[in-house]
């Protein structure tokens, strides 16, 4: 008997086990954005069928949305068509739609938790690999392809092979200036970008439990970057406190019932995982990546590993990666001039991320050589930034706040890093061309990003705190 929380949530949602095949799993929440859903809706039309459970489905554009002038029509006609298509599909199929400028609009993985739509014990899917973010609520949340979006639209179910379970435990206390982002980049640098493929991860340990909900969302967000289908943290008081009072959260008697149920959602003391990995929080320092996958990360005071530390089959890829970045093995990145800084995305686009950024830039000035984009993950975050007066801090330091969306994380809107330019980004992927053709990306926490923004070079944020 495995007795893991993953098993408990998964087993509860099994509609049937297909003989010599996958599990048919019931899905509590489907989110649709404009990029990975149009072909799924087209599929429903081709089959002449409706959505099976429209009230379980929420739609919002985020990938293509511009980060300025959202009250005006989108200039790029192809982006506009994709965003308009989502609105039309939602209307035609009777689904809730938070369009651009709607107060609930933002990046799906920021909006779901902050509006109380994503709750403990749920199964949550979206045609987006970073759906893993929402596992922080104590849910089984994972990204799917467009054919699978169509499956859920048509039947509120999905066919999936049950993943294996993995426990990642981070013990101890995180040091000064070390954030959830650094924990995730550190874990990835140890387990590699494929080390958790085939697994669903439960994060445990004192360093994980001490994280705020925003921190847990960042940690779970990056589960996919080590190949895991998803990752989650068992719900606790921190979770309940975060959810309480949010728009779609249960209220009154329903709330008490929900908390009673959510409190049972934990792995047993005798739970058996297929794989267990442990780390010590004291070993983690602020992290930066130096290559073209998120597993190529190191402590900010470290040097890029030598070629001969890489297994032979991977050396061609490693060399290609460093060539693309314009870095050399053995090099330190401290002091490297930076062209762009991006703070935002479903990884680090929440209020705590902007508070962290503000804590560094307060009383300092943006470096002349840096172009900086601060993009809140949602309108709610944008409002919080204002109500807390962070907008004033940013303005005084020479920064401006843009409007919410995925933005430069994947450069589907106008926010593209020009070819050859070096960007320090709080997002999730440093793949070749991810932030624009030829763009070079260093992934880091909002603190490291802020330190780069005010000094103009890669800087250890601990000296500025």
């Amino acid at each position, binding site marked *: 008997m495995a007795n893991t929380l993953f098993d408990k949530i998964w087993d*509860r949602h099994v*509609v*049937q086990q*297909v*003989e*010599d*095949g*996958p599990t*048919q799993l*019931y899905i509590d929440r489907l989110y649709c954005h404009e*990029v*990975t859903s*149009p*072909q799924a809706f*087209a*599929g429903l039309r081709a*089959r002449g*069928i409706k959505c*099976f459970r429209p009230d379980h489905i929420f739609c919002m554009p985020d*990938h*293509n949305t511009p980060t300025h002038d959202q009250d005006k029509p989108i200039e790029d006609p*192809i*982006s506009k068509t*994709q965003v308009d298509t989502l609105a039309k599909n939602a209307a035609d199929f009777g689904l809730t739609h938070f369009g651009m400028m709607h107060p609930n609009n933002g990046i799906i993985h920021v909006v779901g938790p902050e509006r109380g739509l994503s709750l403990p014990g749920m199964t949550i899917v979206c*045609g*987006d*690999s970073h759906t893993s973010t929402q596992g922080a609520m104590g849910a089984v949340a994972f*990204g*799917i*392809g*467009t*054919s*699978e979006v169509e*499956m859920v639209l*048509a*039947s509120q*179910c999905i*066919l999936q092979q049950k*993943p294996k379970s993995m426990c990642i435990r981070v013990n101890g206390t995180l040091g000064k200036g070390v954030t959830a982002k650094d924990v995730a980049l550190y874990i990835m640098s140890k387990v590699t*970008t*494929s080390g958790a*493929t*085939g697994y669903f991860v439960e994060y445990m340990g004192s360093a994980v439990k001490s994280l705020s909900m925003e921190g847990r969302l960042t940690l779970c967000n990056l589960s*996919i970057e080590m*190949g895991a*289908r998803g990752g989650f943290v068992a719900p606790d008081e921190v979770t309940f406190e975060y959810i309480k009072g949010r728009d779609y959260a249960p209220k009154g008697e329903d709330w008490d019932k929900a908390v009673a149920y959510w409190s049972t959602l934990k792995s047993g003391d005798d739970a058996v995982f297929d794989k267990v990995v442990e780390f010590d929080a004291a070993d983690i320092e602020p992290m930066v990546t130096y290559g073209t*996958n998120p597993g190529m990360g190191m402590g900010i005071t470290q040097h890029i590993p030598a070629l001969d530390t890489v297994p032979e*089959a*991977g050396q061609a890829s490693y060399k*290609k990666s460093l060539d693309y970045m314009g870095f050399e093995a053995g090099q330190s990145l401290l002091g490297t001039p930076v062209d762009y800084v991006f703070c935002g995305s479903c990884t680090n686009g929440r209020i705590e991320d902007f508070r962290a950024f503000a804590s560094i830039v307060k009383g300092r000035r943006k470096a002349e050589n840096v172009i900086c984009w601060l993009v809140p993950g949602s309108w709610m975050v944008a409002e919080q930034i204002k109500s807390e007066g962070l907008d004033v801090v940013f303005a005084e330091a020479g920064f401006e706040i843009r409007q919410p969306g995925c933005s430069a994380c*994947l*450069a*589907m809107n106008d926010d593209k890093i020009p*070819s050859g330019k070096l960007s320090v980004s709080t997002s999730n*992927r440093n*793949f*070749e*061309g991810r932030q624009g*053709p*030829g763009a070079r990306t260093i992934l880091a926490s909002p603190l490291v990003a802020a330190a780069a923004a005010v000094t103009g070079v890669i800087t250890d944020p601990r000296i500025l705190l």
Partner: protein
Amino acid sequence: MKQKFNIITSTCVPLPLENVDTDQIIPARFLKATTKEEKFFGENLFRDWRYNADGTLNKDFVLNDPTYGGEILVAGKNFGSGSSREHAAWAIAGYGFRVVISSFFADIHKNNELNNFVLPVVVSETFLAELFDSIKDDPKTLVEVDVPNQMVTNKATGRSEKFEINGYKKYCLMNALDDIDFLLENKDKIEAWESEN
């Protein structure tokens, strides 16, 4: 495209790189289509590796080398990591590949390939390394992928390996059926689950 699988014998296109992510398979700027035109996605498969920044053909990239061709793509381990975009599978199918051989696939992409009638074949590191060598020695090396018997054979060396695929998915591939057909037939079970929960 729904098509029935049986035995495929073909030459291969080798891509001996690890961690090929879906942003490389199809960059995000090509995700703005609202229809599923495999030809469009196929034309932009590996776009930023196929073309130089100035739009000219990158003659060093394997898809631009007439020496290599066929219905089978052979790639280094951890193929298809990153974004869940199914457009990557559409691009691979649209280009004309029916099989991708690697020692390791990222989960979501593997499902996406299967859902688009592209068969991901997982082989051992040894088989993969030997296959890359065979193709390097002779670009006309044939590989046979026998779906009914779940066997993949490097015809140059004669080495065969059994590959995994569950019985349900094998049946779907061999009969050109998809998961939605299956789910729609099971609505009564879904409603029964809902009434219990």
